[in-house]
């Protein structure tokens, strides 16, 4: 059987993506730069950099530190703001034939709701990813994704904004005692799927300067170092909520890594940090993944989703 005969599609709520590999938010900007390396329409979807209501400068530098098999980042959601995004970036992606998942980030429940309303009205959006790993300014800066009530409030508000027009994917943080509790809350609140995992909170101290290396002190840890945490989190959530589609991510560098996340329960896989090392990572990983899925004798990628739970 040739690769092309396998059904490669990945379903998230009401939308079916023809291919299973996506970019990860914040690791592909808004597509233009990567389109120099491959056709964006070749992969499942471009997940755009989380966008906020207003333009954001982001944080001071240094914003990154390489760590063992990983990296820390503290970008601070630098971006053009939703209006500029919808005016310039989204139409460009649409014209390129890319399927687009718009990632939104807010500092308050109301900001999320307002962003979702704007995204809903824009043409060329396949789904909306809600990055709730942001500090909630109305609740002592506590991250929404780390508190079941805040997480639920955001997703409910977004759901009210978009209704059933677009699938809602809630992006979860692994920095919680029990991620399946958060997953259940956002699911109950109307999320059609969850994306996981966001980065782990980490810190590097510059031992020469004897102070935190990042200007922001802490940053998010990504890359292969965290893959075992991603696999565990996906496995747990899939076990708790087998019907809830998961967009898996965390340290995926190869097709085999992507397959690992799929076996754990991911319906599709986002490629983040890997693209920094290899701008062609997303299409390469997609090719490698399909070869593996074929070798294992599956007729459709969806048959492999959560397969590791069968034993």
């Amino acid at each position: 059987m040739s690769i092309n005969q396998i059904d490669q599609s990945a379903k998230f709520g009401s939308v079916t993506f023809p291919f299973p590999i996506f970019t990860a938010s914040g690791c592909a900007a808004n597509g233009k730069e990567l389109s120099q390396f491959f056709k964006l329409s070749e992969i499942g979807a471009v997940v755009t950099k989380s966008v906020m209501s207003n333009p954001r400068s982001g944080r001071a530098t240094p914003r990154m530190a390489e760590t063992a098999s990983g990296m820390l980042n503290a970008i601070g959601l630098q971006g053009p703001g939703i209006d500029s995004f919808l005016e310039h970036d989204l139409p460009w992606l649409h014209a390129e034939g890319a399927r687009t998942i718009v990632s939104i980030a807010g500092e308050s429940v109301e900001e999320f709701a307002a962003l979702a309303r704007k995204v809903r009205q824009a043409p060329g959006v396949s789904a909306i990813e809600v990055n709730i790993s942001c500090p909630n300014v109305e609740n002592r800066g506590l991250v929404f994704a780390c508190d079941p009530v805040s997480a639920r409030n955001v997703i409910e508000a977004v759901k009210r904004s978009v209704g059933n027009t677009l699938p809602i994917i809630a992006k979860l943080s692994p920095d919680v005692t029990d991620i399946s509790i958060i997953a259940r809350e956002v699911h109950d609140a109307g999320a059609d799927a969850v994306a996981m995992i966001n980065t782990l909170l980490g810190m590097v101290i510059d031992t020469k300067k004897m102070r935190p290396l990042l200007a922001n002190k802490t940053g998010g840890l990504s890359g292969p170092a965290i893959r075992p945490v991603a696999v565990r989190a996906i496995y747990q959530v899939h076990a708790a909520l087998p019907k809830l589609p998961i967009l898996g991510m965390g340290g995926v560098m190869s097709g085999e890594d992507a397959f690992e996340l799929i076996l754990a329960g991911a319906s599709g896989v986002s490629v983040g940090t890997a693209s920094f090392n290899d701008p062609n990572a997303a299409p390469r990983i997609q090719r490698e993944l399909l070869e593996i899925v074929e070798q294992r004798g599956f007729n459709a990628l969806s048959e492999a989703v959560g397969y590791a739970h069968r034993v």
Partner: protein
Amino acid sequence: MTTPVQTQCEVISNKRVGAYHHITLSADKISERAKPGNFIGISVGDEKSSMLLRRSFAIYQASGRGPFGGTIEIIVSANGAGTRWLVNRAPHDKIDVVGPLGNSFGIPVEPVRALLIGGGYGSAALFSLGDALRQRNCRVEMIVGAATAEKVFAPVEGKRSVHSLSIFTEDGSMGTQGRVTDPIASLLDNTDIIYSCGPMGMLQAISKLAATKEIPCQSAVEESMACGIGICMTCVLPVIGDDGQTRMVRSCTEGPIFEGSRVRWDDIGTVPSGTYGGPK
């Protein structure tokens, strides 16, 4: 900006030059596209390396079809584990390269008087610029400096690229004792444009001197880069736009070369107040 490509390059040669390694790579597609000031991103370490991120290197020379096809040359200072790995590559080894990256030096249409200033391996990027300027009939004066003689990069062949070359070392072990910035003030009156590449402190000092006479000053900066291709937003610095607005700008795509007077040198490592999208 030219479209970059990702390609497996063969190491053609790797030679020690003072404190540095001069590495030549076969790289048809990159050499074709490269312009003075561009850089490349090299993936370091073997298949099981814990080093995830590419390292950036200015292109020293890009040559068209020679005996090995198109080649690019870089000058590498072994500072940490990634550069140590790189300088240990032997001929025939393959390395994964993305390039050419970033913008390139702006080259005036008129035959101007150009002053090129390089600190440490920073001079590497300036020789091909010198060639391009000479082709445009510019007068090219170059000042190269470093802490010690072995950290000066000024190859004999390089002299062909410039009309004059002066060398400064902080310990006096080569050329004049002092810093590259020492002679600048006296040269400004005979200079139409400055190009500089080296440590941030040097770029800043040169920009400030150039500003006293409103001489354009193209500075190639070196910021920590996770991706080198514009998708991660780690490499930003505060730069003033045409509209007078300070923005946090990516040095890998909108740089590495900036007009010195536009860079808010004193505020690097902060988000200066008033920056577009900055905290209120």
